Every structure is written in C-alpha cells, then in structure tokens.
C-alpha cells in the first residue's frame, strides 16, 4: 500500500539562513537569490532540515551546480553533493530542483522562478544532504543483465556488424547515463520500487532487446513477464518529463509491453 506521508524521522524542519558574503570590492551584493537546500547530517541524529543560502548572482556561474559549489566554497563547506563532469554526461549531480528531477549542471538558475529549492532524488534513503543511496537502483540495473549475450563464435579480429537500420534502433536507448532522474520521479516506483524495476532499468533492458547482435531477447522478455517488474508502469510519464537527456522511457516501456503481446500472438 502506498505511503503518501514521510516517515517520522524524515519530516523536514526549517534550518539556518546564511547571508551572502561581501564581494571582492568588499560590498554587500545587490543581486542575490535564495537557494533552499535540503540538509541531513547522519552524525547529528536530528531530522533533515532546509537551510537557506543567499547567493550573489553577479559572481556566480549560470547553472544550479555553480550556485551549489559557490555555497560550498563561500557559505558552508559541509554541504554534501555528488558531481563530476559538470556537462550532463556523468549523471552524478541528479537531484530534485524546483520540483522536478534533473541534473544540477545542466539546469540554468535563470530558468527557475522564485527561490531555488533543491532536494535529493525523491523517495530514496538519504546518506547526507543531497546524496541519496542508489544501491537498490543499481541492483535493479544489474538485474536486467545489461551486456551483450551472443554465443556465436567470432574471429577475435572481427566485429559483430550491424546495418545502419539496426544501429538506428538503439538511438534513444544507448544515451542513458543512469542518473536515476526518471526512476525516482515515478510515483509507481515510489510505491513499488521493491518489485517494480522502474523506467531506467526497463529502458536499459530494452536497449539489449532491441540490439540485433543480442541473442537473448526472448529470455529478457521472459524475465520481465511479471505483474510488477514491468506492468507497474501506468504511463504517468514523469520519467519522460524528467529525463535530462531528452529520452522517452515511457515510450520504450510501451514498446516492451507491445513486444510481450506480439510474441503471445505468434
């Protein structure tokens, strides 16, 4: 049964406020915006809270990640977040910004109206601040066995060739960076992530089902033929709305469902 409320230990309290530091000229910055950031300190034993940081926009890069790093540099170095590539390819800085899941490095501050509210990816165990525990998410990814299965003997110096058309079937699939924005945006995943694989794992399963070089499509479909693993998708489409790479997991899941029916009608 879906739990709509947060557990008692997860209810978010109001935290501290940090004013912007003086700029290089020693003056109070005039053009500031408020970043409201979810904080959780596992050492304190206290409930999570939201701290408010005033950030000088005249001396800040354009993206939300720039703002967060400026906060870390100048206001509170203890803010914890994952980040790496700062160009939308590593998927590390996935978080809930302004009510939607996306990458902090590709989300422009200017695109957000009002205060910039930042939370960890939804409905996940929080390790610290914006860092959530994605172990279960990765286990689900591993469970679809995301590697090529092909027993055919090929000379070591030969490639397994595809036609242009066969290769095109992988467009919209191989680009997934496993940031978890889609799965953790899905209400069905929130209520059933113990059994439902979620959009990211399903998209990656289909990435191999659709691959002309993979010989295990039937076995992969057999594995997904389950009331929960696949069919908890109710086409809510939060996944497609959230995907920072512009992919369409909802459509991909529909393709898997369609393949399920087609093979039964054979």
């Amino acid at each position: 049964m879906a739990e709509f409320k947060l557990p008692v230990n997860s209810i978010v309290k109001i935290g501290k406020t940090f004013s912007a530091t003086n700029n290089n000229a020693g003056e109070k910055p005039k053009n500031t915006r408020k970043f409201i950031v979810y904080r959780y300190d596992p050492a304190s034993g206290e409930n999570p809270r939201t701290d408010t940081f005033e950030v000088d926009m005249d001396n800040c890069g354009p993206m939300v990640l720039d703002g967060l790093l400026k906060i870390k540099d100048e206001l509170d170095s203890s803010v914890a977040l994952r980040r790496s590539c700062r160009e939308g390819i590593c998927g590390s800085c996935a978080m809930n910004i302004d009510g939607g899941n996306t990458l902090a490095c590709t989300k422009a501050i200017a695109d957000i109206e009002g205060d910039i509210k930042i939370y960890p990816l939804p409905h996940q165990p929080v390790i610290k601040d914006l860092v959530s525990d994605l172990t279960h998410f990765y286990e689900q990814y591993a469970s679809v066995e995301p590697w090529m299965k092909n027993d055919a003997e090929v000379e070591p110096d030969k490639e397994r060739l595809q036609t242009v058309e066969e290769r095109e079937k992988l467009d919209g699939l191989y680009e997934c960076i496993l940031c978890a924005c889609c799965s953790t945006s899905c209400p069905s995943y929130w209520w059933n992530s113990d059994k439902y694989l979620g959009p990211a794992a399903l998209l990656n399963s289909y990435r191999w089902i659709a691959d002309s070089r993979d010989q295990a499509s039937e076995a992969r479909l057999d594995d997904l033929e389950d009331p929960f693993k696949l069919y908890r998708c109710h086409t809510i489409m939060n996944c497609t709305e959230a995907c920072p790479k512009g992919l369409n997991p909802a459509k991909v899941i529909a393709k898997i469902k369609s393949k399920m029916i087609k093979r039964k009608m054979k």
Partner: protein
Amino acid sequence: MSWDDKRPMSPHLQVYKLPLTAKLSILHRATGAVLFMGLLLMVWVLAAGASGATTWQSMHGFLSSWFGKLTLFGFTFSLYYHFCNGIRHLFWDIGKGLDLEGAHKSGIAVIAAAIILTVLTWLIT
C-alpha cells in the same frame, strides 16, 4: 513499501511538481474508484426497483435531491473521463501519442471531451 531504514526518506509528493500527465493519471485512478462506487449505486437502484413502490420512492427521493444530483453529476463526469482517457490509453498501447507534446495535447482533449459530454448529457436529460 514500508520504510525500515534508519536514514530519512527524501521528500517525494511533498516537493514534486507533478506534470499534467501525472495529474491526469491520478484523476484516472480516482474516477475509476468513483465508477466502482457508482456500480454499488446502480445495484441499489435495481434492488429498490425490485422491492416495491416505497423503496423505489425513497431511492428516487434521494437521487432527486441536490445531493443526489451532485452525486450523479460526479458519476457522469467520472464515467466520461474514465472512458475517454481509456481510449487515450488504448492509443498508447499501440505506441501512438507517447511523446511529451502528444501526451499533453491528448490530455487536454480528454478533459475537454469529458466536460463537454457531461454537460451535454445533463442538458439533454
């Protein structure tokens, strides 16, 4: 899914701005529940009809009251919305209209159709 983790659960419904597609999905579920309740209402109507004039009169009295009419109005909207959105789901099942723009447009169309059909039904009857 029960939460037996000592660590906090990050906020979900509390902070997520649900897109139109998600709101319509909730409405589909809610109207489905209303239809189930409506079935009980239909059974009551049939049972009242089968058990004589006085029971029929009391049932008819309730459904003719403002509250009864409001209930029936809600049921009519639920029926039309669930029906129209069901057709939208059938299109999705054959892989049509699953891009963001298409899903938004069909969502607005379904809401509009449900409202128009509901109003028409109440104007005609």
